[in-house]
C-alpha cells in the first residue's frame, strides 16, 4: 500500500511551462494512503427517501426507518450478514424505548444476533461520528466490516411529563400504604400536567438554533436576499439531480400499511418573490432566517457498508471511495454555534496535505442558508482568520461550481442523525460521476461542534 505514495511532481523542472500547467491540473498528492495504516473503503451506502416530518413516516418508530435503511443496504450490496463485525448508528432525539436504536434495527433487519451494535449521538454530526468510529475500528485492526448509519424520526418526539409529575409518579410507585399514597396524591397540582417538550435549543445557552443562525447571519452581514438566493439554488439543484436520477443512494421504502415511498418530498423550487413574502421565523419581525431558507424537520435513515480495503477486494467488491483524514472541532456554542465547517475545513486539509484546489467535490451540511453563507464569509475573511482562528491568512472560499451540486440539507432534508452518511455518499457518487478524486465533507452541529472528512474516489 505504501508504494504509490511518492509523488514525482516536486522533482519536475519548475522552469518548464508544461510542468507548471501539469502541476496546476494535478493534485498535491496522488493519494492519501498512509504507510502501515489500513485503507478504509466505502463499499456502498443507501438511504431511505428523506420526508418532511409528519408525512408518510409519521406512524413509524425510529428503528423502523433504520431497519429500512439496513435492509436496503443488504439488498444493494448483497453482503452476507454474518461477515458484519459491528453496527453503529447515530441519532439525536432518542426514542426512549429503543435507546440503542442500532441494536433494535439490526435485529429487526435480520442481522446476526451475534453482531454487536451501538448508538452514538453528536447532534447533526451523529452519523459522521458513527462512520469515523467505524473507520477507527477498522484502521486499528479490531474489525474488518462495519455498518454505519443514522436515523431520525421527527414525526414523533418524546414529550415528557413535567419533573414534578414524574417525581410524584415515582414516589407513588414506592409508597407502601394507602395513607402514604393519599398524602402524595394530595400534593398533586394541575400545573404538574404541563408537558415538557424537547427543544431544538442549546442547553448551555437556551438559544434555539434558528435564532443563533439569524444572529450569525447578521454578524456576517448576510442579507435576506442572499439567503433566499442560496436556498433557491439548493432546491433547484436538488430537483435537477432528482430528475436526472443522480440521487442513486435513495432506496424505495414500502411503508407498512401505506404506499411505497421512492423519493425525497422536501424539494420545492420556488421563486424569489414567493420566498420574499415569508416572515422571519425566529427573530421577529426584522430577522432574516425564514422557513424557506432553513432546513426543515425531516424523517429519514441512512446506512453504509465500510470495510478494510483488502477485505472488500477479497470479497470481490468494487469499492466506491476511501474514507481518509477526518477532524472534529468545537467552539463557542453561543456566538459561533454553526461555524464548524470554517474551523474544520483548513485543519483537515492541512492534516491530509491537500489544498482547497485539490478538492473536486464539496459536500457541506446546509442547516440554514444564512449559516452556509456566514461560513463562506468567515472562510473568505483575513480578519476572522487572524482574530478567531489563529491563522495568518484566510481559509479561502470553496468554488461554488463544485459545491453541493446535487442539492443539500436545505432541499433534500436533514434528519439530524442520518445526514452524515448522505453527505459522504453524495461526495463519493459525485466523484465517480464527475471524475474527480478528492471530496470534502463538512458539517456544523449543536454544541458549537463541527466535522470535516476527506473522501477519496476509488480508482476505477
Amino acid at each position, binding site marked *: 500500500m505504501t508504494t504509490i505514495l511518492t509523488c514525482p511532481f516536486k522533482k519536475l523542472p519548475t522552469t518548464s511551462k508544461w510542468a507548471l500547467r501539469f502541476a496546476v491540473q494535478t493534485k498535491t498528492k496522488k493519494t492519501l494512503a498512509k504507510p502501515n495504516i489500513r485503507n478504509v473503503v466505502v463499499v456502498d451506502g443507501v438511504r431511505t427517501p428523506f420526508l418532511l416530518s409528519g408525512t408518510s413516516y409519521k406512524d413509524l418508530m425510529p428503528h423502523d426507518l433504520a431497519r429500512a435503511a439496513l435492509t436496503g443496504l443488504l439488498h444493494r450490496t448483497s453482503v452476507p450478514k454474518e461477515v458484519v463485525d459491528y453496527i453503529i448508528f447515530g441519532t439525536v432525539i432518542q426514542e426512549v424505548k429503543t435507546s440503542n436504536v442500532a441494536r433494535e434495527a439490526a435485529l429487526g433487519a435480520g442481522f446476526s444476533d451475534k453482531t454487536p451494535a451501538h448508538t452514538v449521538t453528536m447532534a447533526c454530526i451523529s452519523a459522521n461520528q458513527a462512520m469515523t468510529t467505524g473507520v477507527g475500528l477498522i484502521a486499528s485492526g479490531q474489525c474488518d466490516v462495519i455498518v454505519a448509519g443514522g436515523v431520525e424520526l421527527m414525526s414523533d418526539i418524546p414529550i415528557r411529563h413535567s419533573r414534578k409529575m414524574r417525581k410524584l409518579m415515582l414516589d407513588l410507585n414506592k409508597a407502601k400504604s394507602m395513607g402514604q399514597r393519599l398524602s402524595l396524591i394530595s400534593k398533586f397540582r394541575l400545573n404538574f400536567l404541563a408537558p415538557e417538550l424537547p427543544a431544538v435549543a442549546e*442547553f448551555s445557552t437556551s438559544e434555539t438554533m434558528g*435564532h443563533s443562525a439569524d*444572529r450569525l447571519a447578521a*454578524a456576517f452581514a448576510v442579507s435576506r436576499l442572499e439567503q433566499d438566493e442560496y436556498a433557491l439554488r439548493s432546491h433547484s439543484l436538488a430537483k435537477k439531480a432528482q430528475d436526472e436520477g443522480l440521487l442513486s443512494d435513495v432506496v424505495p421504502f414500502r411503508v407498512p400499511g401505506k404506499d411505497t415511498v421512492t423519493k425525497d418530498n422536501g424539494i420545492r423550487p420556488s421563486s424569489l418573490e414567493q420566498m420574499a413574502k415569508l416572515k422571519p421565523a425566529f*427573530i421577529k419581525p426584522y430577522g432574516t432566517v425564514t422557513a424557506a431558507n432553513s432546513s426543515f424537520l425531516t424523517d429519514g435513515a441512512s446506512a453504509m457498508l465500510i470495510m478494510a480495503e483488502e477485505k472488500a477486494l477479497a470479497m470481490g467488491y468494487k469499492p466506491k471511495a476511501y474514507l481518509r483524514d477526518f477532524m472534529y472541532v468545537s467552539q463557542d456554542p453561543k456566538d459561533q454555534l454553526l461555524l464548524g465547517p470554517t474551523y474544520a475545513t483548513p485543519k483537515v486539509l492541512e492534516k491530509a496535505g491537500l489544498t482547497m484546489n485539490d478538492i473536486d467535490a464539496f459536500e457541506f451540511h446546509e442547516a440554514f442558508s444564512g449559516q452556509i453563507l456566514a461560513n463562506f464569509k*468567515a472562510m473568505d475573511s483575513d480578519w476572522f482568520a487572524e*482574530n478567531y482562528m489563529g491563522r495568518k491568512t484566510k481559509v479561502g472560499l470553496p468554488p461554488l461550481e463544485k459545491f453541493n451540486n446535487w442539492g443539500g440539507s436545505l432541499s433534500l432534508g436533514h434528519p439530524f442523525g442520518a445526514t452524515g452518511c448522505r453527505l459522504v455518499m453524495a461526495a463519493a457518487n459525485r466523484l465517480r460521476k464527475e471524475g474527480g478524486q478528492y471530496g470534502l465533507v463538512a458539517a456544523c452541529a449543536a454544541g458549537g461542534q463541527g466535522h470535516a472528512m476527506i473522501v477519496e474516489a476509488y480508482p476505477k
Partner: protein
Amino acid sequence: MVACRAIGILSRFSAFRILRSRGYICRNFTGSSALLTRTHINYGVKGDVAVVRINSPNSKVNTLSKELHSEFTEVMNEIWASDQIRSAVLISSKPGCFIAGADINMLSACKTLQEVTQLSQEAQRILEKLEKSPKPVVAAINGSCLGGGLEVGVPAALDMMLTGRNIRADRAKKMGLVDQLVEPLGPGLKPPEERTMEYLEEVAITFAKGLADKKISPKRNKGLVEKLTAYAMTIPFVRQQVYKKVEEKVRKQTKGLYPAPLKIIDVVKTGIEQGSDAGYLSESQKFGELVMTKESKALMGLYHGQVLCKKNKFGAPQKDVKHLAILGAGLMGAGIAQVSVDKGLKTILKDATLTGLDRGQQQVFKGLNDKVKKKALTSFERDSIFSNLTGQLDYQGFEKADMVIEAVFEDLSLKHRVLKEVEAVIPDHCIFASNTSALPISEIAAVSKRPEKVIGMHYFSPVDKMQLLEIITTEKTSRDTSASAVAVGLKQGKVIIVVKDGPGFYTTRCLAPMMSEVIRILQEGVDPKKLDSLTTSFGFPVGAATLVDEVGVDVAKHVAEDLGKVFGERFGGGNPELLTQMVSKGFLGRKSGKGFYIYQEGVKRKDLNSDMDSILASLKLPPKSEVSSDEDIQFRLVTRFVNEAVMCLQEGILATPAEGDIGAVFGLGFPPCLGGPFRFVDLYGAQTIVDRLKKYEAAYGKQFTPCQ
C-alpha cells in the same frame, strides 16, 4: 409620545461592560458639513433617514450636558426643517451606553435654584418637541439608558422614575418601555461590539423607514390589563386612591428622608390633574428645588467619592491574580469566594473541617442559585461558574496561588499559625491578605518571612451585598502588593478605600464607640425595637441593635475588648459585660438564632429575645433625662461616630475625607442622605456638632470630648 419608538438592546454581562472608545467610522454617508464642528452630536442621512449619533467627547459615557443639549436642539431643528428627511434614528456612538443621565458636574456647577430650573425647562422643551415630532424618531439604545437618557429614549413610566432601578432589556420590553430588542451579535467580519452597533443602526433605520412609510404602526398593542388600568385612571376617585397608596409606600420606604420621590409624585399629580403644561412647569421648579437640597449635595458627593474609589490609584499590578485561595469557609470566606468565582477567578476554598467546608460551598452555591431563580443566570452559567471553586481541606494547589486571603477566626495566634503554614507552600510572588476587622495587620505580618507581601483586606458581611472593601496597608506593604489587592477588589465589584494600619483601621474604629453608646442606651432602658426605629429613622439602613445581631455578638465583644484596651476611656460608655453575658448564654446574634432578637429560618417577623430582659435588668443604668430625648439618643450615636472618623483623618489613618465618607456609607450603613461623616460635618456645621458633643461631654465625660 407615540412617535418615539425605542429599540433596546440586551446588555450582556461581559461584552458590554468593557467600554472601549472606538472611533466610529461614518461610511455611506451623504454627510453634512456640520459634522466636523459639533463635538457631542453629529448626524448623517441614509436615504431619507437621519442618523443622529450621540458621543460625549473624552468620556466613557454620554451625559446630558449643556453642550450636548444645545447641539441636539440644533440638529433636531435641522432635521425637522429638511425636506429630504422623513424620519430619524437616535443612536450612541459608544457601545454599551446610550445616555447615562444628567451630567452631575453640570448640576454641581449651578449656584441658584433659577439656574437649575432653567436647565430643566430647556431640557423639557426639546423633549416635548421630540414627543410631538412630526417625523417619526426611533431611539436605538445599546446598553445603559438611565435618568434623562430614558426620557430621551423612551416615554417614562411612573415606577421607573421613582426608584431609579436598572431594568434589564427583556424586562423593559415586557413593561412596554421599548418596542423591539436586538440581541448582541458574536464575531463576524468585524469586532462584535462594532458590528452590533451597526446592526442596531440598520434595524433602527428599517423601523424608521417603516414608520415614515406607514408600513409599521406606531401604536402599541395594549393588553387587557393595561386598557383596564387606563380606564380606571380616568375616574378621579380611583386616581386619588392610587396617589395615596403610592405616597404611603414611598414614605414607608424612605422614612421621609429623601425628598425626591414625594416631589415626583406631586409633579405627576399636577401633570395629570392640571394638564401637561402645569406639570412641566411644576417639574422644572421641583427639580430646581431638589438639586439645591442638602440631600442632593450629599448624594452627589457620594457619587464623586464612589467614582474615585472605583479606580486603582496604585496602577496596574505586575502580575494579574488568576488563582485565588481562601482560608476559612465561614460566612466571610465563602462570601469572598462567591464574589470571586463569578468573575472568573479560579478559587480554592480551604477549611479545617469537612462540615465547615460543606457549609461554605453550600453558601456559594445558594448565592448563585438564587440568581438562577431570579433569572439573572441560567442554570448552565451557574454550573460553569461554580466549577471555578475547589473546596478542600489541605494545601494542595497552593503552589499556583497568586493571592491567599485568610478569613479564619479572629485570633492572632491562629492567624500567625496559618500565615506560617501558607508561606511554606505558596510561590514567591503570592500575596497574603488578611480579612480581619480589628487585628492590626503589622502584628499579623510580624511572623511573616516577606512582610512586603502582607496586606489587609477587610470585607463586610454579607460580602455579596456589601459594596465596600477596606484595604489596609502597613509600613512594609509594597506598592505592587497594594495594586494587586485593589485590582482583585475592583474585579470583585467592590468600592475600595485604602487606609493605614492601626487598631480597628477606619471602619471598625468608628463603629466601636457608637456600639459602646448603643450598649449604654440599652442599659438605660431603651428597648432594642425602639432603638432600631430611632436609628433607621435617622437614615441608617439597619437598626443599631439589629446591626449587633448581624455582625455577631462575639465579634462585637472581641472588637470592644481589643479596641477598649488600646483607646481606653474614649471607647467606654456601655458596659462590655453585656456582650460577655450574651456570648456566655449563646446569644451570638443571627448566626446562632438568638441575639437581641430571635431568628427563625423562613420567619420574617423578628421577636425580641425575652431572655435578654434579665441580662439588661442586671446591668441597668439610670437614664440622664437631659440627654435622653429621641433626638439626643440619635445624636449621641452619630456624634461619637463622626468624632472618631475625624480623629482617623487627623491621625492619617484615612488619606482623604472622601474615602471616609464612602467607607462609612458603603461599609457601615451611615445614612446616605447625610453623605457620610465628613459631608455631615460640612452640611450641618462643625460648630453645631461640637456644641452637641460638649453637651454630652458634660453629662458623660471624656467619651464625647470633641477632637480638634
